């Protein structure tokens, strides 16, 4: 049993890869078997992620010693082979990915997967890229997993086609291709200077670089930081984001809610590992803090200016990215735990919100704001075609409008951070940590952070209530028809957020433990590298 369990960390990569390949080979017409494969693979990923979550915390007997689990691919020892590393943070991100993935997948089965071909295989490959990026302990492997998830996301962003999607998708692809090239330059520079790609060994070697090499290394690290900031949607590199997310099909936008957090995760991971090397600029400190504040400001302005719910949701994603960046840039490490709590809550809420928007706006008859998008692309015709064989499961639920209103209200509370749901708990914990842990000098910093946080919440509330009134109190509109498999995932995501706020204490202690073990870079390095090499021998 133990022999089998030690292979658990590779499963989040293998499962979606195999499922994706299987789905690619099977015919598009076998709808039920394809849906079954996709759901089984995603449920299995969720189970694996939950098991890893328990193991990383020591609640379940882990097959590895210590807190950080290391899986050496092909059993090659760390600096030479590629390793996967499981700690609490990676396990949290894995669980979040598969939870959101499962919800959006179930939602997409209603009719979205028919808006174009290869939706299900691309979706699995996206999950594979996400899981791999969270697990890997190798810089170049991180690049490869980024490419896997980006390649899948390019396909998904274009899913359903239409002029708006293709134009927005083209910008998205161009920006990310340039970012990938920068990633390559950064990885090559870092390898050229330190002679390693393993993240743990990199942390060691970066700390003992000479002055000449340090300039080149900092250049490489800076480029790497810029790449992660592009992915995270930080100002001024985020103008592609609202268009790409707003134009994407709803289940795609739902899973995209976690894509920006991959950049934030990578930024955080490298910031901690490179701390000994004097943390190059983009990874932390004042610089990142002000970058985060600027991101919050642009996101907030965008929220106020947005005329459509999908663009509004895109700007809300930017605001949450900005809050996280500012929190990680805040001096001291006490904000990391609350920031992780906020991250989980905001990803779940924005995922639910993206799914909800389409249901709420469904009965808009080709309104002016959709003129550029074809009817087919929005699946508007599908609601008249309930005789589709696989819509047997989709009985229209009663009181659809009441459900939508309630769900919208909960999402608004979550996204703007009003009590009693988890959005409030996350923001409150962030503010409390900022004020209590701040040394005397940075009380000003805490004040700025609090102002940005509260103002962004207020404007979010204004914009959401304004657009909510327009959508829900529109008397001329017939009530939309909803299916259980569309409403279910949204309800489940919101319910998860409520559970998160009910179980704040255990959740927060887990997140704080995750932050602690994350900031314990020597433990990470010690677990990954079997024997610490002699100092001064790079």
């Amino acid at each position, binding site marked *: 049993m133990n022999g089998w369990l030690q292979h658990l960390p590779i499963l989040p990569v293998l499962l979606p890869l195999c499922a994706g390949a299987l789905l690619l080979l099977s015919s598009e017409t076998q709808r039920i078997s394809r849906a079954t494969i996709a759901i089984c693979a995603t449920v299995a990923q969720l189970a694996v992620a939950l098991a890893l979550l328990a193991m990383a915390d020591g609640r379940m007997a882990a097959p590895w010693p210590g807190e950080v689990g290391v899986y050496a691919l092909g059993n090659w020892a760390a600096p030479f082979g590629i390793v996967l590393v499981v700690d609490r943070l990676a396990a949290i991100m894995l669980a979040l990915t598969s939870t959101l993935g499962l919800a959006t997948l179930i939602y997409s089965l209603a009719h979205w997967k028919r808006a174009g071909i290869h939706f299900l295989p691309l979706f699995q490959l996206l999950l594979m890229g996400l899981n791999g990026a969270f697990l890997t302990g190798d810089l*170049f492997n991180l690049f*490869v997993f980024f*490419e896997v998830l*980006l*390649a899948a996301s*390019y396909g998904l962003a*274009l899913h359903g*086609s*239409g*002029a708006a999607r*293709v*134009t927005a*998708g*083209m*910008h998205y*692809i*161009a920006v990310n*291709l*340039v970012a*990938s*090239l920068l990633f*390559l*330059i950064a*990885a*090559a*520079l870092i*390898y*050229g200077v330190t002679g390693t*790609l393993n993240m743990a060994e990199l942390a060691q070697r970066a700390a003992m670089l000479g002055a000449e090499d340090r300039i080149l290394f900092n250049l490489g690290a800076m480029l790497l930081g810029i790449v992660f900031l592009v992915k995270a949607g930080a100002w001024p590199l985020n103008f592609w984001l609202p268009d790409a997310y707003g134009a994407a099909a709803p289940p795609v936008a739902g899973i995209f809610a976690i894509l920006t957090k991959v950049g934030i995760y990578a930024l955080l991971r490298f910031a901690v590992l490179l701390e000994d090397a004097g943390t190059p600029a983009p990874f932390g400190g004042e610089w990142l803090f002000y970058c985060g504040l600027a991101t919050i400001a642009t996101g907030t302005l965008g929220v106020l200016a947005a005329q459509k719910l999908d663009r509004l949701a895109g700007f809300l994603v930017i605001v949450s990215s900005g809050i996280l960046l500012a929190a990680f840039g805040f001096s001291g490490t006490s904000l990391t735990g609350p920031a992780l709590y906020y991250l989980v809550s905001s990803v779940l809420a924005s995922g639910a919100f993206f799914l909800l928007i389409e249901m709420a706006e469904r009965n808009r008859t080709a309104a002016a704001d959709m003129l550029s998008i074809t009817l087919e692309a929005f699946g508007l015709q599908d609601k008249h075609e309930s005789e589709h064989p696989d819509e047997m499961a989709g009985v229209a639920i009663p009181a659809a409008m009441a459900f939508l209103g309630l769900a919208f209200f909960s999402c608004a509370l979550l996204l703007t951070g009003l009590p009693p749901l988890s959005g409030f708990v996350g923001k409150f914990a962030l503010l409390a940590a900022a004020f209590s842990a701040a040394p005397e000098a940075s009380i000003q910093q805490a004040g700025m952070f609090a102002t940005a946080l509260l103002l962004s919440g207020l404007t979010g509330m204004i914009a959401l209530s304004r657009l909510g009134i327009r959508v829900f109190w529109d008397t001329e509109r017939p009530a939309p028809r909803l299916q259980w498999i569309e409403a279910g995932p949204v309800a489940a995501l919101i319910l998860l957020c409520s559970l998160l706020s009910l179980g704040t204490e255990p959740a927060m202690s887990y997140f704080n433990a995750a932050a602690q073990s994350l900031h314990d870079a020597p433990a990470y390095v010690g677990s990954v590298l079997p024997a610490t090499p002699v100092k001064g021998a790079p």
Partner: protein
Amino acid sequence: MEIVFALAVGILAGSGIYLLLRPRTFQVIMGLSLLAYAVNLFIFAMGRLRMGAAPIIDPARGSDPAMYADPVPQALVLTAIVISFATTALFLVVLLASRGLNGTDHVDGREPDQE
């Protein structure tokens, strides 16, 4: 050799960035391709430029690392070539689709003076 190599990388990257900032999709894809070539050469150079050194250890010649080229950048550059090739092909399809749907090859999907 270093100066020629550096000039080649610099010229490729410079032309690539110039083309990338142009408003037509064809220029953008050419820019991306040139930039990708520059990056691939750059990765290669990070293993240090060596003449006549194989990256594979020859048992007859012994295992002194000074006699061999660094194999890691060569492996990286292979991966990078494959990935940039595939994504460029994908971008080509998208720009053709954009041309077909919008009737223009401007990156914004419409001519700037139509607004």
